[in-house]
């Protein structure tokens, strides 16, 4: 039982103290049993406060530490680390979340927010009294890393890992490497060809001793966890009729680089599917790249007027995709410039919703304006309409730039500037249980603190599977993910959280309820002294607690959240 507890109540520089009276919270808990020190701090996470905490632990001989601040998702690790530097067992540290759960949730009720904060801190104190020291588990980690997806992001991640002397398995579903990038011709900003770029990088990863490339291969199942994943891969047979080959591999960490799909317009969306002369940006780009001669022809017709309709499948307040796809403005403008330079008589008309050529890409927009491209702008409320007038395709648009005038433009070809959507094949994400954001792309843990990690330890995300990106941004993300995956397992041993389910084998009578409740396949049946009981695989258990309440004989306790700790918290809260 802890008798010398220190409590720190954080202002979070106003994030908390604007709504919660932190001084009042501090005074309300300073006389609680076992509390010997309670103080407020402007930023508990700042270096100076961290050092102060360490001094306090030593000076006041503290045996328990509590910080009442933000979500534990943000800083539980920070303060565990401080506790450890103060030479206490870091798992005895208890965190109280009075920002997300009090100040932010009740910004309209300062008295109530303060009251709730006091309760939350008292509950943390109650838990702290019973908090037992825990010790992490150490185990050997596999040092091979799997990269799933052989597009530009996956290939760069592979190269980067191999450079660091890791063994890498690159798994690509298609029969060739390069992903979408290999489908592009001339690229914006550098004018290198997409397929040349991917060939250059593929050349860098082929024939390297520590890279094993599998094309035409799919991950069909995964199990295990960081350091000890086991993945099953099905490789398409070389010849039709042959059986497909199944491989099982032991993997330490996984980089997911499964990319995106092009948005595919719905039937009839801006005439798509109804008219042969309504095509998507990727189709138009291929046409421009592959056409020779000075005249642009499509399906035997000469093309002069090209009308681009932007944000097709992006920025739809009421549609499926409310996000901006980021790359399409630049790509469309670059393609329009290419077409104009390559062929005679091209007139480009861009119907857009505000051009987003951010950063240096702005120069392309300026260049296209200088070349005489026409830009008309519409709102989402009044989308352009396509119809046929005197056998000509005509697009009517209410142009914001001319004070909302209804204008009509003639088109030989309409190009739908389509955005990026998440892969329709979500199998990798489902197998690994990767959470998705509202946009359907895989979610990082924290955009700024842990931008390439997922909540599944050991699985990082690279490139456009995390959200729309251009090539350069995908590569940055891929190299970051590769370094993260590498640093997770490069030491060869891994520490896991000791917060796991513990089974009282005396009481367990194997009913399989816990097995069914476990989302991580950490529980199995084993015979101990001729009795069937449940056992927990410590390296797989995440300590989620799903099994604890379903046990009919109360034989499961969660270390770090024992029944004793939880009951004492509940006593304070109710």
């Amino acid at each position, binding site marked *: 039982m802890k008798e010398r507890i220190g409590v720190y109540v954080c202002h979070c520089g106003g994030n908390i103290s604007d709504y919660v009276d932190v001084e009042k919270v501090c005074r309300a808990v300073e006389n609680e049993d076992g509390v010997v020190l309670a103080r407020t701090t402007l930023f508990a996470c700042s270096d100076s406060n961290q050092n102060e905490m360490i001094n306090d632990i030593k000076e006041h001989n503290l045996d328990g530490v509590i910080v009442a601040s933000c979500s534990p998702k943000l800083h539980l690790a920070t303060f565990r680390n401080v506790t450890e530097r103060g030479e206490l067992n870091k798992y005895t540290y208890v965190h109280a979340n009075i920002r997300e759960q009090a100040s932010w949730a009740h910004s309209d009720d300062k008295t109530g927010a303060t009251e709730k904060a006091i309760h939350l801190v008292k509950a943390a104190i109650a838990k702290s009294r019973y908090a037992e020291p825990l010790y992490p588990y150490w185990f050997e980690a596999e040092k091979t890393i799997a990269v799933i997806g052989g597009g530009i992001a996956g290939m760069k991640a592979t190269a980067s890992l191999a450079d660091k002397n890791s063994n890498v398995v690159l798994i690509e579903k298609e029969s060739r490497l390069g992903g979408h990038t290999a489908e592009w011709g001339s690229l914006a900003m550098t004018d290198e060809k997409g397929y040349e770029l991917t060939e250059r990088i593929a050349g860098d990863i082929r024939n390297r001793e520590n890279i094993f490339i599998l094309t035409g291969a799919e991950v069909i199942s995964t199990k295990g966890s960081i350091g000890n994943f086991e993945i099953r891969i099905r490789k398409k047979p070389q010849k039709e009729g042959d059986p497909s080959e199944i491989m099982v591999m032991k993997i330490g960490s996984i980089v997911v680089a499964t990319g995106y799909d092009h948005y595919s317009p719905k039937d009839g969306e801006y005439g798509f599917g109804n008219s042969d002369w309504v095509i998507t940006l990727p189709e138009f780009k291929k046409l421009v790249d592959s056409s020779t001669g000075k005249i642009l022809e499509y399906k035997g017709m000469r093309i002069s007027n090209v009308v681009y309709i932007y944000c097709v499948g992006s920025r739809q307040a009421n549609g499926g995709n409310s996000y901006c796809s980021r790359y399409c403005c630049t790509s469309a403008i670059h393609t329009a410039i290419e077409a104009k330079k390559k062929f005679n008589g091209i007139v480009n008309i861009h119907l857009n919703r505000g051009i987003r050529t951010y950063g240096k890409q702005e120069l392309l927009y300026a260049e296209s304006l200088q070349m005489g491209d026409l830009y008309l702008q519409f709102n989402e409320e009044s989308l352009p309409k396509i119809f046929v007038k005197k056998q000509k395709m005509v697009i009517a648009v209410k142009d914001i730039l001319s004070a909302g005038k209804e204008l009509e433009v003639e088109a030989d070809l309409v190009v739908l500037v389509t955005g990026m959507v998440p892969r329709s094949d979500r199998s990798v994400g489902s197998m690994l249980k990767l959470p998705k954001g509202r946009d359907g792309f895989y979610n990082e843990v924290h955009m700024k603190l842990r*931008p390439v990690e997922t909540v599944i330890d050991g699985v990082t995300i690279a490139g456009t599977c995390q959200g729309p990106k251009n090539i350069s941004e995908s590569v940055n993300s891929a190299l970051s993910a590769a370094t993260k995956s590498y640093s997770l397992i490069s030491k060869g041993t891994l520490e896991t959280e000791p917060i796991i389910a513990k089974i009282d084998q005396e009481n367990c009578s194997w009913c399989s309820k816990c097995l069914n409740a476990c989302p991580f396949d950490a529980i199995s049946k084993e015979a101990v002294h001729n009795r069937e009981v449940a056992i927990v695989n410590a390296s797989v258990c995440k300590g989620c607690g799903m099994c604890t309440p379903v046990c009919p004989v109360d034989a499961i306790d969660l270390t770090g959240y024992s029944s004793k700790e939880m009951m004492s918290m509940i006593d304070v809260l109710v």
Partner: protein
Amino acid sequence: MEERIKIEYDALVIGAGIAGGEAALNLANTGYKVLLVEKDHSLGGKMILLSKVFPTLDCAACITTPKVSEIARHKNITIFTESEVTHVSKRGQNNFTAEITKKPRYVHVADCTACQLCEKACPVNVTDEYQYGLIGRKAAFIPFSIANPKAAVIDIENCTLCGACERVCPTHCIDFTMETELYELKMKTVILATGFRLFDPLEIPRYGYGQYKNVITSMQMEREIAPTRPYNTILRPGDGKVPDKIAYVLCTGSRDNTVGNPICSQICCMYSIKQAQLLMGALPMADVTIYYINIRSFGKGFEEFYQQAKGMGVNFIKGKIGKITEKENGNLILRYEDISSGVVSEAEHDMVVLSVGVQSNPAVSNIFDAGSLKLDFHRFVAQKDLMGSPSKTSIDGVFVAGTASGPMDIPDSILSAGSASSEAISYLSQPQQQ
């Protein structure tokens, strides 16, 4: 700290903002010895001075302070603050020599307890650059409350050498005999994370910055709404009134050939939308209007953040501001081209925020042997292989992280730093040539 200074390092990281710090941590966590050189008195760059950051509205300090703390205590990282790298020469693969000038702080950091007695004793008042000129500070001062190292500095330019600070200092850590120190150190690779400069709106006299007191920059507004804010509320500087009709002028110094900067700064739309949202929270009765050319909310969650601001009642007016004039009561008249009606209009606001853009920091090229570090057309560090290896520069073994290579937001800077450190680790892992 002195005993930790080694003659040889694996990596030199120039600049300890969010990108440099991230790159240094990545290298240090992989086991490499890093020398991190910062010209300012504190780590954390511009980010540590921000309020909240888009699109998640995390408080910037809550992200930077623990990161900075981790950097400061990392056993593989040696930090030089108030130091400048004056020359780097490449002698061969994995072989760089850097000359570094460490300016005197006149305070022994290890002994300073940041008690602020020196601040109270100092009789000299000057403008506080960390509050972007909104208030004053002393010549003996702690840069800001969450600075790291959190220790006093003597601003020798403005110090009158009266000795008052020295007399009150309880730990005798103030030392006027400290001198500039010169180092020549060796390292195997270099990461440039020298960041960006903010556009100086004095270059656009028609906006009246510097002349009209209620025209401020977005960085000044950032300070007004930050947790370590100077006034504890939002005030307009002219007369201390709480503003209730605030205007944002986007693209100040960006997308503007008249100031020689045709490119887009990539961050101003979003930070202005963020500030507008925070202002709506802090001043529920205030009107906030954003004058824009195009809103560029292109990143993950950005468009949704823009829509959220619209939903909260932020006014968005498409139109470029031509001119700002001041009324007698300190209010400002904005003359603009109102695109929606197609006519030139005027609007009155009681405070104007200029959303200043990103400018390059080209001085970094001077530290390398003549012309060896290439800059691009806009004088950012040129990226040799933009698509294949975005952090590679014209010098093999020298990498670029964050805004040193062009405008980018914080998430992109962090990924760029991840990319640069990854390339640096790969470079360090190459078999050594004899």
